[in-house]
């Protein structure tokens, strides 16, 4: 799998051509903007740009589309941090600590940290791409239906374990999510389930509509209901740069989450949502100050941001090495480059190696551009917090509807959006954790289909879930993640009885 330095340098050279630099800049900026707006994701943006790419050189087209893709990863977390309204599955984990930080008047730092973490995660992934693209693509192939099923079970168990002390509500939330994910055509039998004769529901409820509904519309409604309550002091933005201490606690989480996100990104279909959630839960469990997570721990922003950006680079590996798109966005990219006469497939590296390496070079440059863009935008973005509620929330409300419409061009989705807005409101009032529900919707139907495919291929034997090393590792991780909260609790209790003096650390 020769990474010879010369071709790599050639690639960088092509990426440095003024036109290509311009495409990276345009793509990155556009990606950041669509990432910020609820519902408008990279897949939509790339699809809309397809006609523009028709006349372009395939390399430039690929550079532009990839820049939109990872640009959206940068942008996606902006609204998560500032407004608690993630625009995509991969930006949900950024709300956990990003929004509390913002409420505590540390929005500037949260945004800066997320940009830095994204950069480092992205760079780690680009380096990983250069050296590991082929072996990783081979590794990803080992994931059969059984392994995918177990990976999703692991992710869900990790999310539920987040709602420690509130497990019952966590499980209820997850179960509702799983129920929702059964709506639509059942692939294995072709039977329509719970579609109530509405053809728009035949492919299931789009999880993005649920995300926008519960988070964005829910947030708007919540603010409407609590409008009479005193808001307290005007939130300040705080410092716009991170402190040394913050860097210290975030350094390792970022460096660990980058490779983790990259690996998960390589698996076709897993993607940024799973990557960012798993990196968050992992870091929380490894952390010495677990109790700070969810209350504005800066490393809780850093870890998932590093992971989801790395995952977006990883997702390009199956596309470029095997011609297999690993996510919605890469599927659209595939269609676009085929139109330009490039056949992505196992031979792409041999036939169009220069194109692949130019892309790698452009991703390197693009990530640096994006940090600059995001840091420059920081001052502007935090102004959102100064916007009076009576202007801000109606705008979010309108954007939610526009974003929803661009997903499937369907009016039915508006009703679903409003319905989940009310659900989101209720969940906020009764303090149900939202993430388990959303994640269950995202992975639920894949999880079920993979479970059933596993059983068809093993002729009904459950043994298939213990057959491969990957499965066994995933099973152990799942058990650990469920039992971990209880184990730590036990240890803490023991420690407490040991030093009766108590400790002075923050509670």
């Amino acid at each position: 799998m020769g990474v010879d330095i010369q071709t790599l340098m050639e690639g960088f050279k092509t990426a440095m051509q003024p036109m290509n630099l311009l495409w990276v800049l345009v793509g990155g900026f556009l990606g950041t903007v669509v990432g910020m707006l609820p519902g408008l994701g990279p897949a939509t943006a790339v699809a809309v740009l397809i006609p523009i790419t028709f006349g372009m050189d395939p390399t430039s087209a690929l550079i532009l589309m990839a820049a939109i893709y990872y640009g959206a990863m940068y942008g996606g977390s902006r609204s998560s941090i500032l407004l608690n309204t993630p625009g995509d599955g991969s930006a949900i984990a950024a709300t956990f600590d990003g929004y509390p930080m913002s409420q505590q008047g540390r929005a500037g730092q949260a945004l800066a940290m997320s940009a830095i973490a994204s950069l480092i995660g992205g760079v780690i992934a680009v380096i990983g791409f250069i050296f590991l693209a082929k072996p990783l693509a081979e590794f990803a192939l080992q994931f059969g239906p059984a392994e995918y099923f177990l990976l999703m079970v692991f992710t869900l168990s990790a999310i539920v374990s987040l709602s420690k002390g509130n497990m019952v509500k966590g499980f209820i939330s997850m179960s509702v999510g799983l129920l929702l994910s059964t709506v639509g055509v059942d692939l294995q039998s072709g039977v329509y389930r719970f579609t109530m004769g509405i053809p728009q529901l035949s492919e299931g409820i789009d999880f993005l509509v649920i995300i926008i509904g519960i988070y964005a519309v829910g947030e708007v409604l919540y603010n409407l209901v609590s409008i009479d309550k005193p808001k307290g002091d005007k939130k300040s933005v705080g410092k716009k740069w991170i402190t040394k201490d913050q860097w210290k606690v975030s350094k390792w989480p970022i460096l660990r989450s980058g490779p983790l996100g990259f690996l998960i990104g390589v698996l076709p279909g897993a993607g940024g949502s799973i990557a960012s959630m798993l990196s968050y839960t992992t870091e929380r469990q490894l952390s010495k100050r677990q109790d700070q997570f969810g209350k504005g721990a800066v490393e809780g922003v850093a870890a998932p941001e590093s992971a989801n950006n790395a995952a977006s680079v990883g997702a390009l590996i199956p596309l470029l090495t095997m011609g297999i798109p690993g996510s919605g966005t890469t599927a659209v990219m595939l269609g676009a480059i085929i139109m330009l006469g490039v056949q992505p497939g196992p031979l792409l590296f041999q036939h169009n190696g220069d194109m692949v390496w130019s892309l790698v070079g452009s991703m390197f440059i693009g990530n640096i551009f994006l940090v600059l863009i995001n840091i420059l935008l920081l001052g502007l973005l935090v102004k959102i917090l100064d916007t009076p509620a009576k202007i801000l929330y109606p705008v979010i409300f309108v954007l939610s509807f526009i974003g929803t419409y661009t997903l499937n061009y369907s009016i039915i989705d508006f009703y679903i959006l409003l319905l989940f807005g009310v659900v989101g409101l209720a969940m906020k009032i009764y303090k149900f954790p939202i993430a388990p529900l959303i994640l269950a919707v995202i992975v639920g139907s894949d999880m079920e289909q993979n479970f059933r495919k596993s059983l068809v291929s093993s002729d009904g034997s459950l043994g298939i879930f213990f057959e491969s090393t990957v499965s066994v590792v995933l099973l152990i991780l799942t058990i650990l993640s469920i039992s971990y909260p209880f184990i730590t609790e036990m240890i803490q209790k023991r420690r407490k009885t040991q030093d009766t003096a108590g400790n002075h650390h923050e509670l």
Partner: protein
Amino acid sequence: MKKLLIFLSILTLMALTACGSQSSSGDGGESYPSKDLEFVAPASPGGGWDATARAMKKVLNDEKIVEENMNVVNKPGGSGEVGWKYLKKQDPHTLSVNSSLVLTNNLLGKSQLTYKDFTPLAILTTEWEAVAIPKDSSIKNAEALMKQLKKDPKSLKIAVAPGLGNDDHLSFVQAAKTYGVDVTKLDFLVYESGGDVVSALLGGHVDVATMSVSEAKQQYKADKVDILAVSSEERLDGLEDIPTWKEQGVDMVFPHWRGVMGPPDMTEEEIAYWDEKLKKMTETDAWKKILKNNEWQSFYKDSSETKKFLKEQEEMYSDLVKKSGLAE
């Protein structure tokens, strides 16, 4: 500052959504077309329908075959149902891409609509279906595959995407049925996309996969998978060493075609308009280049041939769906 930000966001949004909007001017009624045209791709961007609609728009407009502006609108859902329901209510300035799903959705009991609810205008392209196996498979040719399935239909796991009743699935059923396999007992694993089927095959998670030739070809060229048979009449360009089903004693030809149709009750003149324009389109170099890039083959049939063809196809699919055990 914040106003500027909001303004900028809204501007971007408008720019992004503008491509989806449709502008219409007054209906003159004198000559067709009298306003902008609309192409419905009844699926999300990225798939074959979307690619066909966008390619048509590009060639018809770029080559100045049609002067009126054309917009592609995506109406995904229900394997075409959403887009076609929409088409049924439009005037003749809206057309839609179709495929065999316009027949099978109805035969499978998923839809009330059939091809008779619309005005067939043309069949444009076809792809052919391939049966692929992993490189290290013990099965060496299509006959061995069928022999084994005849003996034990459940002995091989077959990957298909994205749903039962589509051409990838039914072409395999047709081949197996022709050979005398009990097709109701076959074990299909249904994957979400063609890409997932390829990964499953490369990873050795399934024994056989049925998919369009274009999806299998690149993997075959890279020596990652073997192709046992193609569903075309004759061997295909670029895959001259792959025998057809016919050569291997399974008498069937199975095209995976895509065509164009309009809303119900289009007039003679309107149909004639599209016969002329679409024929012209299929003769351009730009169109031929797009076909080549996408591994599609020209399969052009004008409106009257299309009508006849659809009738034959419906009989064929009706029989197939019944025998496959998909519909009671």
